[in-house]
């Protein structure tokens, strides 16, 4: 038998009697623990707001995910009634459920609020330890669900992320960091639940226009559509994905993978219009007329910065962004036999490796700093080296040499020193007389990008920074024009996909506030601890285990095609790699539970607490105390089938017993605010 709660949202007057009764019955002091919580939501506009209260406790899931991830097997499900119980003796007495000392973290967070360095560092704050634990148990679908809570592009991100999380991973104090990004990719590639999502019910009046379908735009769209808004993404190019589609070669990010993820987002109800450049196809003014309550500009950085050297007009010079874009759009792209690429970022590496795949006999990098300082990821550089790319460090181009208008070489000089200047503009001094010409028939420059913001001038009213990016409020992402938000590379300058995703998410949350008429301006940023500040003492009994290495194509097989180089983990390697996680913050149950049920008190090493269905009362044939307390009889409990018969069919979330509210709800993120179909009784 499976016991379940039923909750009639239309009867809840938000009186909190259930919460008080729960605290009294279980003798829970005032403080962070609320086993039976009541949340209030309101939206719409005066005088017709929609207001609802929602009550949440443990759902006593059919397959409790918390039990699966608990390293101490402290969480069990009783067979006779399906009640999920926590063994307080076992909880946190098992080794290594949380090795962060609350006293060493700095602004000491409580046990329940502890975050691991990886999660804190990730710009999108993915619940890394949670999904890694699920992978280690072979629960790939559940892992992907957890990743998806705040990651719109799991497969893509698993491939191309610069993974700052791994940089702070504490496992490296012992041996090597966890392969977090590769594991995320593994989960996304091996889960079975990444196709045909259900469209999210449109519960809100407002709709949002998003300009640009890169990671920032897609992230904002993903969040807004899940909040219940109508979302249209306008993309200037014939394909969606922004830089992910046209900036990254197939051997790193296959087109079908990107398409699958974009299809998933579209499947949630996001409308994506390609070949729709702003300015020519439509204007911001027209968008407002069409009822879009807010606009998010995420047009990226698609214009290469030209190096300030003579000879860029010669035939045979290319800019890296256009080069990769043309290739990705299927245009004819040619390189010569000897290709020089200027720059040290991922675009430079992508360009040089692409050149080899296009038939160049020789391709090399010219970079003004050292390898250590290269922005490109180590993995990228390594693979390029394997493929025969030569790297010239501390070398700066001084002139592109040509004959008859065609490139014949690149004159370079050795760098004596570089002084950083304002806004990233550095002044380079060269070693006198060190100039020499490196032979090349193609020169690709990839020294940086800027936003292509001609349209901004056309709209008017948007302030720009000195760097030519869009100026926004750093917290709310609102531009100088109310209701117009911006984010991603168009605001930050060229940065990483994960930063763009985080920007899109932040913008989405403030766009919601704007549309709902809340005051968005003037907010102060919350102070956050940095991942690198978190101190972790690795227990002595942890045995060193090397990081699993993802399979890659053999080098000789790579250059003949654009096939994906990194093949990713197999099942065994993934589970072995995931098992290496130290679980620094502990409280995996809390991270894994999609309903945010597990709670921890404020004290050090607090035990997990959650609703226990009042098992002591159950034995006496009494209702759980919250159910028996409800003045309007909004709560009920009993066997699932009985609840269904009594209260009608409700929403059954995957793996969850029964959670009923009047109109079938879509519970998306209970922890951060419910989303439900409004209780409209017309």
């Amino acid at each position, binding site marked *: 038998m499976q016991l379940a709660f039923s909750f009639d949202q239309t009867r809840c007057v938000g*009186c909190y009697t259930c919460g008080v009764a729960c605290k*009294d019955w279980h003798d829970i002091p005032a403080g962070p623990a609320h086993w039976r919580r009541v949340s209030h939501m309101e939206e719409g506009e005066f*005088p017709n*707001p929609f*207001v609802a*209260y929602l009550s949440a406790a443990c759902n006593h899931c059919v397959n409790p995910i918390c039990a699966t991830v608990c390293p101490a097997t402290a969480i069990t499900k009783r067979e006779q009634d399906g009640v999920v119980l926590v063994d307080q003796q076992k909880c946190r007495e098992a080794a290594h459920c949380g090795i962060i000392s609350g006293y060493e973290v700095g602004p000491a967070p409580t046990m329940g609020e502890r975050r691991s360095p990886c999660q804190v560092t990730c710009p999108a704050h993915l619940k890394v330890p949670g999904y890694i634990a699920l992978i280690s148990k072979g629960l790939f679908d559940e892992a992907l669900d957890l990743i998806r809570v705040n990651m719109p592009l799991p497969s893509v991100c698993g491939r191309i992320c610069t993974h700052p999380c791994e940089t702070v991973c504490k496992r490296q104090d012992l041996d090597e960091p966890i392969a977090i990004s590769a594991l995320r990719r593994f989960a996304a590639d091996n889960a079975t639940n990444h196709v045909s999502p259900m469209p999210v019910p449109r519960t809100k009046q407002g709709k949002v226009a998003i300009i640009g379908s890169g990671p920032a735009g897609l992230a904002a769209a993903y969040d807004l559509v899940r909040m219940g808004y109508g979302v249209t993404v306008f993309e200037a190019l014939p394909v969606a994905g922004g830089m992910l589609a046209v900036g990254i070669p197939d051997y790193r990010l296959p087109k079908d993978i990107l398409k699958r993820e974009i299809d998933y987002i579209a499947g949630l109800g996001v409308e994506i219009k390609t070949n729709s450049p702003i300015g020519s196809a439509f204007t911001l003014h027209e968008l407002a007329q069409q009822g879009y309550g807010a606009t998010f500009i995420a047009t990226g950085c698609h214009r290469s910065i030209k190096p300030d050297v003579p000879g860029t007009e010669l035939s045979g010079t290319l800019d890296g962004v256009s080069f990769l874009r043309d290739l990705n759009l299927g245009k004819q792209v040619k390189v010569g036999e000897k290709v020089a690429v200027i720059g040290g970022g991922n675009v430079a590496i992508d360009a040089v490796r692409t050149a080899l795949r296009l038939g160049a006999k020789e391709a090399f990098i010219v970079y003004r700093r050292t390898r250590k300082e290269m922005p490109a990821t180590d993995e990228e550089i390594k693979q390029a080296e394997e493929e025969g790319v030569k790297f010239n460090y501390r070398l700066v181009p001084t002139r592109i040499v040509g004959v008859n208008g065609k490139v014949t070489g690149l004159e370079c000089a050795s760098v004596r020193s570089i002084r950083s200047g304002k806004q990233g503009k550095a002044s380079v001094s060269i070693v006198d007389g060190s100039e020499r010409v490196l032979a090349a028939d193609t020169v690709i420059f990839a020294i940086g990008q800027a936003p292509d913001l001609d349209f901004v001038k056309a709209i008017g009213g948007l302030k720009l920074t000195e760097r030519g990016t869009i100026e926004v409020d750093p917290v709310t992402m609102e531009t100088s024009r109310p209701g117009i938000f911006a984010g991603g590379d168009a605001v930050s300058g060229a940065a990483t996909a994960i930063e763009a995703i985080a920007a899109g998410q932040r913008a989405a949350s403030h766009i919601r506030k704007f549309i709902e008429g809340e005051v968005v301006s003037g907010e102060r940023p919350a102070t956050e601890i940095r991942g690198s500040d978190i101190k972790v003492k690795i227990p002595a009994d942890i045995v060193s285990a090397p990081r699993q290495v993802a399979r890659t194509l053999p080098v000789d097989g790579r250059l003949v095609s654009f096939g994906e180089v990194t093949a990713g983990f197999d099942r065994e390697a993934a589970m072995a790699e995931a098992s290496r996680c130290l679980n620094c913050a502990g409280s995996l149950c809390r991270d894994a539970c999609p309903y945010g049920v597990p709670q921890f008190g404020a004290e050090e090493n607090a035990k997990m607490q959650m609703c226990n269905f009042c098992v002591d009362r159950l034995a006496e044939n009494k209702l759980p105390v919250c159910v028996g*307390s409800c*003045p309007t009889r909004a709560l009920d409990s009993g066997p699932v089938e009985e609840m269904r018969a009594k209260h009608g069919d409700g929403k059954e979330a995957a793996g969850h017993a029964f959670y009923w509210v009047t109109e079938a709800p879509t519970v998306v993120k209970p922890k951060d605010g419910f989303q439900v179909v409004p209780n409209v009784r017309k």
Partner: protein
Amino acid sequence: MSVNPEATELEQEKIIPTMCASHCGGSCLLKVHVKGGVITRIETDDGAEPQIRGCWRGRSYRQRVYAPDRILYPLKRVGARGEGKFERISWDEALTATANEIKRVRDTYGPASIIFVPMGGDLGIIHGAHLFDRLLCMAGGHTRTWGVTSFGQGMFSSLATYGTIHCSNSRDDLLNTRFVLMWGFDPGKCINGPNTAWYLAQVRDKGVRIVSIDPRLGDTAAAVSDQWVAIRPSTDAAMAIAMAYVIVSENLQDQAFIDKYTVGFDKYRDYLLGKEDGVAKTPAWAERITGVPAETTASLARQYATIKPAALLAGIGPGRTAVGEMFHRAVAVLAAITGNVGVHGGDAAARAWESLIGGLPYKVLPIVTRVMPSTSNPVERGFPVAQNTLPTYRGPRVHYNKVADAILRGKAGGYYSDYKMLFTANCNYLNAMPNSNKIIEALKKVESIIMVEQFMTTSAKYADIILPTNTYMERNDYTPGASTWFHGIQNKIIEPLGESRSHFDIATALADKMGITGYNDKTEAQWLQQILTMAEVKDVDKLKRDGILRIERDEPYVAFKDFIEDPQKNQLSTASGKIEIYSQTMAAWNNPKLPPVPQWVEPFETLTDPLAKKYPLQLITPHGKRRALGQFETLPWLKELMPEMVWLSIADAKARGIRDGDMIKVFNDRGVIMLPVKVTRRMMPGVVQVESGAWHNFDENGVDRGGNANTLLGDDLSIGGHFPYNTCLVEVQKVEEEQ
């Protein structure tokens, strides 16, 4: 709350039932678990439906009993008034000092200089503030207060229209209605009789349309109502009058009912149609006053007049305004002209709360029943006896709201006496009454202050002597059900904490100390027995065992059903014996502010007041959710679940650059409070809500950081002499300080 481990080992957990009656608007069954003499948990009714389930207040009563700020010993003030510095004294010292002080003031200034202010608190028939009224009467007399804080305007109108205050149906009769108009009514928060919100939810489930008229979207309305009509505070009467205009001008009234059961319809119709003043009271006329679109008013009028039976539930909030008497008169008359009085599913619309004081037409003793009745008050001898009638003349009594004014001005201000001693029981006067800064002035001025208290309230800090009383969990008493057909008993659950004593014990001991003979000749148990006999409780054992004894009846109770069935035999107590649309009593007063038919009377301190230029927002001060009036304020569970917030509309917040969660000041010429703000779409633009009852916390600049609404309210009376808690003008401003 520590448990003696040995006792715990030995003693089994016991469950003792009691009836919570915390002056919250209900009274509900609690089943209290006790182990080793300590309360461990509280459950509620789990018997057959309709269960009388306790709310969040009753469920948290354990924290109230064991609250660290409870006063457990007699205290004598050693610091300045208001400073909160006291020393513990013995009961003998406390009683001697109290007795001597009463005698000194009486003998020096005369008995009228002692002013006694009682309130509700823990409601029981034995243990109430009335015990001290009797005591002071027998000690030579004292000045009493008059006025009803909670629903004076509603009582006024009930008496004027129906000749009685017993006008409500029992709650289960709501299931018979086909249309509900909740007017300033929020039983999910204010209880208004156990199970009221539950019955409304059931009514809604049956497909009955529920409309809420309120300046803010209340909790109950948010859950059950189909429509929210936002209305400017203090203007509800205008809307009700315009509804009557629509009904009359479209001939939708129940003329047969009017002819048979009412008087004065023609005069009201003349007023509505503008025959007197040339102004037709159309919905468009009302819109300029109320802010409610004319078509909404007209549509609601048609619905109310044509969907039958319809229940207009008149909350007490719209009544607690400067012209609230006219609101209550106007809605009661709406019920009468549509024939919704005395029928199942209707409602007399007099006052929507079947409270402990009124509207108990059952065989249950109302809370005002006194087993130790007040004897005649020597101070009032020779004055006409104050009747339970329309308030006109109260002899030497001082209005509840004017106690501070009376202390400050005395005879020179036109009062009957100078006032030298303030004696309060169950009363956090400073907290509960408007114009806090003026009250503080009075509390500093008056010569002596004696208080019977449970907690170190903001008022208690001004007391000279505090006599600590216990809670209802520490004594035996009887309490009646509110709106519901039952007897309730308060079984003693635990021994009194510390040296706290029951009211009964304190009053009896004080009478002894003062040498008053004949004050009390029975024990608590004997009094309880007498009450149970008076209440005709058949099965006393069952009542004590269950805490509750339901009264069997055939059908839901409907007020005035007997009058409707036979208006000749069962005449009303009005002058005409009928429902008075035109009140003969009021006509005799010839007071333009109190016209004999419901009329729109211009209130003070609303948007038409020139003061609105300076203070453009209207303040409403409904009951605080986590409190019962001022009680329960310091309970950690409730504090954490329901943080104190000012409610402000999005439009008003935007105009002032205020964000949700900001600290803001709410202020006018009378005072300043500071609280965090909830910017919400549930507030009508132009209106601010500060829940009443928060405990003051004045900082060095005189800013009340506790956020008590009374810091802002004035002590002027409504047209009928009542409390205009929802008529006030303020401005709000963001506080730029401390991050």
